[in-house]
């Protein structure tokens, strides 16, 4: 029986074998993304090492911390996008496939984050945190 899990005649452009010249272009892109990912990680670590969540001797909140925190989250999403779109080649796949993968995931995870943050805010305000509850 003919197997249908094998690529037929290089029919899918992404699976097709390519020549040396095309390979050089791809390798250049890989190196570019490597440099970006490394630079972002170094930047994150420097921010984490020098900008503290607290100030002074009494451990008060650092007023700029919320901005630092949000830049960490934004930089993480940028890194994730490079990994998924370039290293995992999702950016080169067909549009319908991109949406099949990303659409449901983003929808579910946004809902999960929303519901958990809402609920944990309630726990914090009403009970003073999960760990304050003694059985």
């Amino acid at each position, binding site marked *: 029986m003919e197997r*249908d*899990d*094998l*690529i037929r005649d*290089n*029919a*899918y*452009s*992404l*699976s097709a*074998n*390519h020549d*040396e010249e095309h*390979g050089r272009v*791809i*390798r250049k892109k890989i190196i570019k993304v*490597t440099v970006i990912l*490394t630079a972002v*990680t*170094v930047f*994150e*670590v420097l*921010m*984490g090492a020098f900008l*503290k*969540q*607290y100030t*002074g*001797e*009494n*451990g008060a909140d650092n007023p700029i911390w919320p901005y630092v925190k949000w830049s*960490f*989250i934004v930089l*993480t999403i940028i890194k*994730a996008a490079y*990994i*998924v779109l*370039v*290293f*995992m080649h999702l950016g080169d*796949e*067909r549009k319908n*496939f991109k949406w*099949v*993968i990303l659409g*449901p*995931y983003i929808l*579910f*995870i946004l809902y*999960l984050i929303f519901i*958990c*943050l809402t609920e*944990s*805010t309630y*726990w*914090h305000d009403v009970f*003073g945190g*999960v*760990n*304050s509850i003694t059985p």
Partner: protein
Amino acid sequence: MGGVTENISKGKLWGGDGSPFRISYGKQWMWMFLVSDALTFGGLLTAYGFARHSADSWPIGEETFNAMPFLGNGYPLLYVALMTFILIVSSVTMVLAVEAGHRKDKKGVAKWLLLTVVGGLFFVGSQAWEWYHFIHGTHFGSILTTDGWAVVDYVGTDLVLKFGRGVEVVGTEAQNLWEGAITLAGTGAVEPITMQGANLIENEYAPNVPQYADFFFFITGFHGFHVFSGVVFNLIIYINVVRGVYDKRGHFEMVEKVGLYWHFVDLVWVFVFTFFYLV
């Protein structure tokens, strides 16, 4: 009954031939698996966020993870940054192996895949060290004072009590707190109530939030298990490459499939790194 017909060129239609996504079934279902696995990790990290957001206080990553092998403490986040870098580099060698596969360059695939395996082993080893350090804790552990829990340290012979968030008490004030801690431990006690290291029930980094260590063990452990499985998959594919299995098949798509999994492991670590260590 009237109908409207329209001529659509065959190039636009799928026509039931092959995959509608123009992707092989193996790759498509690897993606489907990765989506479900990503939901698992998303759920774990969101649960961590739930516990952290509802708690009154939470330990700070750079105070808990500030040790380097052979060098001791005082290097905030450096070790975990190194681990992150190792994983990113092994992701790069993987994508280079996939590229070499498209050129049917068997030697290139073997070389890059082997480097990926080495990088993965380095990462798993680093994680083992990190766990060892986390479980054993700081040199002297934490004591329960009248002002709450504090990590004990000494500069020379001088006592230093670290209350977290950069708050440090030294000199006679620290000595008084130590005496008070002994009194707090009860009549006849000669030492304060001490907690050292971490397990599933208590941890010295955040004595008031025992679930902190549980989340650490579960999330980094689950991720480490993924890395370990990835190393095993990569090794199997490496052996196949060297044996010439994919030369015979005419394409190196299996390298691409394990590559997807390996990049996913890197992707998860990027998020664990941010939410466990940085934020």
